[in-house]
């Protein structure tokens, strides 16, 4: 591709928002008598027709169990399932499909790493580093691991903008650091962490690093080979795919040395009454009948975002965020929570003394769906001394007009409370 072509590709004026919105049937509805304005994408994203139809076709035409049948439907199911693994591999730029483990979601992936890799390698006196920004799913599994092993859990603090303080991270790192687990993008504030630098710093002391990419994969191109991270996890449902499916990427050598997380069918080679031998990667970590439809649907979701091109959509989302910031900053009493320089399209805010839950209800009355609460990131809320925020999170199918609807709805909150 020549230069001129690349430039054209990232020009969002060629971004056909109407065509994209037509792919999302759910968006064409009214809620409480108003057009739905769905701004809760960080919680879960909507699914394009292409994903829904793929699920439909699977159930209507080739539903069967995989990896075990010799019949036609099973062979077709297995082929499509494994093709999805190939798509994930390419999507993350992993070395091999052996490094792609299907799990229920980011939560299960982190628990798998904590219990399989962690339990096997961590002992008393070791240290684990996470951050103040994490989602509970990247806090609690490490707290449990520390309780089980006697290891110590340390937190990288954040500054008033919601950015990690890397000097403090530097101080926490030492020869006892075994694991660093960190979110790529914060779900509560939208902060994009300097992940490459954080990975390199962890490796410099010999620690392994897990990156929670739940909020990152819908907004940015991820290249695990370039990043060099040891583990990378994400959930399908935030990437326009089904719920109940997610991915654990792990470096092959690490996964290979790890004991199974769950056991049962599919993950074994032979079972005798005395001992069983485990299947090879990635199946060693996929015990039982997997979420076949979920995997196939995730494959379709990846096809969909590849088609759109994440660099183009990210640029469009930034335009939405800039416009939302500009409009929201005109509202008296509105306070932004999370003002990192490098930020994805998440707008977390408080509004004078109006409680975020009341904001959420009033916005819903205007058809505007946002999240109100602690966003499963209570340490972040504590850091800012607030119980909760209201959060509008944008996806590429949102529009500037929807930002206007959000702003008007926020106005309405102020009117209701006079």
């Amino acid at each position, binding site marked *: 591709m020549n230069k001129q072509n690349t430039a054209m590709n990232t020009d969002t004026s060629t971004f056909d928002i109407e065509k994209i919105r037509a792919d999302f049937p759910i968006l064409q509805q009214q809620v*409480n*008598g108003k057009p739905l304005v769905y701004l809760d994408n960080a919680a879960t994203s909507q699914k394009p027709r292409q994903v829904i139809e793929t699920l439909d076709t699977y159930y209507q035409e080739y539903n069967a169990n995989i990896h075990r049948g010799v019949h036609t439907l099973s062979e077709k199911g297995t082929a499509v399932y494994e093709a999805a693994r190939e798509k994930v591999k390419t999507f993350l730029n992993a070395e091999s499909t052996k490094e792609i483990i299907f799990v229920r979601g980011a939560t299960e992936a982190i628990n798998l790493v904590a219990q399989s890799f962690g339990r096997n390698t961590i002992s008393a006196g070791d240290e684990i580093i996470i951050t103040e920004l994490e989602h509970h799913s990247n806090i609690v599994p490490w707290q449990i691991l520390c309780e089980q092993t006697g290891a110590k859990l340390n937190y990288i603090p954040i500054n008033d903008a919601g950015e990690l303080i890397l000097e403090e991270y530097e101080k926490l790192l030492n020869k006892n650091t075994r694991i660093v687990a960190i979110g790529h993008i914060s779900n509560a504030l939208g902060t994009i962490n300097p992940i490459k630098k954080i990975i390199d710093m962890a490796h410099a002391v010999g620690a392994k690093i897990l990156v929670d990419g739940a909020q990152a994969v819908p907004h940015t191109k991820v290249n695990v080979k370039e990043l060099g991270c040891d583990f990378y996890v994400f959930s399908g449902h935030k990437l326009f795919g089904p719920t109940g499916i997610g991915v654990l990427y792990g470096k092959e050598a690490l996964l290979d040395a790890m004991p199974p997380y769950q056991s049962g069918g599919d993950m074994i080679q032979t079972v005798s009454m005395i001992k069983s031998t485990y299947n090879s990667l990635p199946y060693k970590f996929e015990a039982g009948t997997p979420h076949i439809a979920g995997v196939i649907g995730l494959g379709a979701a990846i096809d969909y975002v590849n088609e759109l091109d994440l660099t183009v959509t990210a640029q469009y989302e930034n335009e939405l965020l800039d416009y939302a910031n500009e409009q929201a900053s005109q509202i008296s009493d509105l306070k932004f929570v999370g003002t990192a320089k490098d930020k994805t399209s998440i707008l977390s805010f408080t509004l004078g003394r*109006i*409680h*975020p*839950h*009341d904001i959420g*209800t*009033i916005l819903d*009355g205007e058809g505007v769906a946002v999240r109100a*609460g*602690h966003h499963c990131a209570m340490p972040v*809320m504590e850091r800012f001394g607030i*119980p*909760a925020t209201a959060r509008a999170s944008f996806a590429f199918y949102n529009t500037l007009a929807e930002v206007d609807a959000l702003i008007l709805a926020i106005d*309405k909150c102020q009117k*209701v*409370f*006079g």
Partner: protein
Amino acid sequence: MFDIKDLYQEVIVDHNRSPRNFGKLEDADRTLEGYNPLCGDKLTLYIKTDGDKINDIAFDGSGCAISVASASLMTDAMKGKTLQEAESLFNHFHSLVTTDDDVDMEQLGKLAALAGVKAYPARVKCASLCWHTMHSVIQGDNTPVHTE
């Protein structure tokens, strides 16, 4: 037609802005905390009884407009009531926000302003946190209340 003002009535907005009976009651003989873990709403109820009678009652804590207004209205309504009367009011209020049954509006007085939450299942818990806490106090239960 849907109208947000059915939920956020004048009375509620007013009781949220300036909650009555707000603050710690130093000489309370019964104190209990209530939590709404999902929302992070918290309140502490302070009650001073004289035998069977609620002589004084107050609350503090933080929460959304619905939970603050509800606690404000409830504490207002409780003053001077006997524990039995309080329990009966709890039952009336519970019916008001969770059922379609006919409720004795006269008995409820200003509390009727909270009838609007019934249309917002996610917010019923906000309105009832203080009431469940009150109910536990009356039952003599000392464990902090969690609305699930």
